[in-house]
C-alpha cells in the first residue's frame, strides 16, 4: 500500500501545508489589520461553493469567484471617499453567508456537505488537494517574497509609497487577491467559520516574539504548521472535529505567546492582542486601505 493511500497521512500533510500557508499570509493580514476583511472572505466563499456544487462545477472555482468579487469590491470601496468600508464589508459578510444558506435550503440532501464546509473535513482530502495546497503555498510564498518592498512600503506609509511612485491601489489588489487564494485553499480543510483563527492567530502569536518581518514570518509559518499538526493529533486523540481542534490549538498558541512573551520580557504587548480583538470593534480592516486625504 502506498503511503499516500492512508487518509491520515494525507490529512497530516494537508494540515502542515495549510497551517504554513495560513501563517505566511496571516502576517500580512495582521500587519495590515485585515482580519475583518479576511473574515468576510471566509464567509463570502460559502455561497460560491454552494452555487458551484449546484451547477456541478469544481467548488474551488465557485469559492475563488465569490471571494474575488468580495476582494475587488472591498478594494474599490476603500478608494471611495466617505465610504464606510468596514460597514460595507460587514454587510457583505452576512449577506454572502445568508445567500449560501438560502441556496442550500433550495436543495434537498445537502446538509451533510454543508456542515463539513462550515467546520472542514480534513480527513477527506485527496492527493489532488495536497498538490493544490502545495502549489498555492509556493505561489503565495513567491508573490510575498518578490513583492515584499511595495507591500511593506504601502503598509507602512501609504502616502510615502505613492509619492515614491508605487501604485498603492494595484498593490492592495495584489495583497487582497493573495489572501483570497489562501482563504479558498484552506477553507475546505478547516472550515468557513474556523479558517480565520488559523490565519490570524499564528501571525499574532509571532508578533509577540519579534519585530523583524523575516523572523516573525518564519515564526508564523512554524506556529501555523504546529497548530495544524497539534490540532489534528488532538482531534484523533479525543475524537473531536479537526477544524475545531486546530482552531483551539492556534488560539492556545496565541494565548501562550502573549503570556510567555510578557513574562520573559518579550517585545510587543498591545499590538498582537489588537490584531485579534481590537480592530473587530475599533479599527476595522478596510480602514487601512482608505487613502489618507486630509487637507
Amino acid at each position, binding site marked *: 500500500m502506498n503511503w499516500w493511500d492512508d487518509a491520515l497521512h494525507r490529512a497530516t500533510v494537508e494540515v502542515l501545508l495549510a497551517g504554513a500557508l495560513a501563517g505566511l499570509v496571516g502576517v500580512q493580514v495582521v*500587519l495590515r489589520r485585515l482580519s475583518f476583511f479576511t473574515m468576510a472572505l471566509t464567509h463570502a466563499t460559502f455561497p460560491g461553493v454552494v452555487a458551484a456544487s449546484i451547477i456541478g462545477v469544481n467548488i474551488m472555482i465557485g469559492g475563488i469567484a465569490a471571494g474575488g468579487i468580495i476582494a475587488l469590491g472591498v478594494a474599490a470601496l476603500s478608494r471611495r471617499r466617505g465610504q464606510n468600508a468596514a460597514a460595507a464589508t460587514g454587510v457583505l459578510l452576512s449577506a454572502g453567508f445568508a445567500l449560501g444558506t438560502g441556496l442550500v435550503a433550495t436543495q434537498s440532501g445537502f446538509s451533510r456537505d454543508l456542515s463539513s464546509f462550515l467546520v472542514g473535513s480534513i480527513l477527506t482530502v485527496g492527493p489532488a488537494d495536497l498538490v493544490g495546497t502545495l502549489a498555492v503555498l509556493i505561489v503565495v510564498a513567491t508573490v510575498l517574497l518578490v513583492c515584499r518592498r511595495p507591500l511593506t512600503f504601502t503598509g507602512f506609509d501609504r*502616502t*510615502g509609497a505613492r509619492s*515614491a511612485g*508605487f501604485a498603492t491601489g494595484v498593490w492592495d489588489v495584489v495583497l487582497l487577491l493573495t489572501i483570497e487564494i489562501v482563504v479558498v485553499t484552506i477553507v475546505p480543510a478547516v472550515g468557513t467559520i474556523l479558517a480565520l483563527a488559523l490565519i490570524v492567530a499564528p501571525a499574532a502569536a509571532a508578533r509577540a516574539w519579534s519585530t523583524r*518581518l523575516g523572523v516573525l514570518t518564519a515564526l508564523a509559518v512554524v506556529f501555523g504548521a504546529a497548530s495544524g499538526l497539534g490540532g489534528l493529533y488532538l482531534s484523533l486523540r479525543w475524537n473531536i472535529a479537526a477544524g475545531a481542534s486546530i482552531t483551539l490549538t492556534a488560539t492556545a498558541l496565541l494565548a501562550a505567546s502573549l503570556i510567555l512573551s510578557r513574562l520573559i520580557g518579550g*517585545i510587543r504587548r498591545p499590538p498582537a492582542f489588537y490584531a485579534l480583538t481590537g480592530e473587530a470593534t475599533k479599527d476595522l480592516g478596510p480602514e487601512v486601505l482608505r487613502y489618507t*486625504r486630509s487637507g
Partner: protein
Amino acid sequence: MSAALSYSAVSAGYHGTPVLTHVDLTLAGGQRLALVGPNGAGKSTLIKSILGLIPVLGGAATVLGRPPAQARPLIGYVPQTDSLDADFPVTAAQVVMMGRYRRIGWWRPTRAADRRAVRAALEQVGLADRAGKHFGTLSGGQRQRVLLARALAAEPRLLLLDEPFNGVDAVSQEAILGVLRTLSADGTAVVLSTHDLAVAAELADIVCLLNGRQWAAGSPEAVLTAENLRAAYGGHAIEVGHDRTVLVEP
C-alpha cells in the same frame, strides 16, 4: 536651469472642489520655502499638489520644469510621522532603504551603493547608531529624522516636509534644521509646512501665508507682520510689544 517650483494662480483640491486658491510662488534651487497658516489652511494640500497626488484645478504649476506628477522621481517627501503605522515591523535602516526603492526597482536586490547611501543618510541626521532599531521604538523626533534620512537617500532636487517639527524634541529639531541648511547650501530646494512662525522666520528665504488661499508670500520680514497674520488667522493673532513678535494661538 528651471525653477524648483513655479506656481501661477494655482488652485488645488479634491473632486473638483478647490481647497486652496490663488497660489503664486516661485522657488529657485537651494531656496527654502515655509508654508504657514492655521489648521486646515491648505498647507498639506499644497505639498500634495507639488507631488501630483492632488490635482491642480486651475492656474499653471510646474515642478522642476515638469508637470507635478512627472517630477516625483526628483522629489523627496517627508510625511507627518503620525500618518504612518509605527507598529509595522521595520527597522530605521529599512525605512531609509525605502528611499532607494525607486532606483532599485521593486524586486531587484539592493547593491552596495544603496547600503552606502542609507548609512550616509542616517549619519547625516545623526542616527547611524540607531540603524537596526525598530522604527516604532524610536522617539517622535528620531522617527522624523529617519523619515528625513529616507528622503535624503533618494538624493532629491526638491525636498518636501509636512510639519517636520510636530512633537519633535529640541535636539531633533536642531538636527533637522542643520540638515535642511546643508541641503539648500548644496542646491536642493526645500519646502516645509509648519505651525512654528519662529522656525519659519529663522529658516526660510520665502514664507507663504495660507488660509484657504495665499494671503502673502515673500521674505519673512515682509510676510510675518501683525497685519498679515491677523488677516490670515482671524482673531487668533496677538501682537506682543512693538518688535514684530507675534504669537498665534493654534
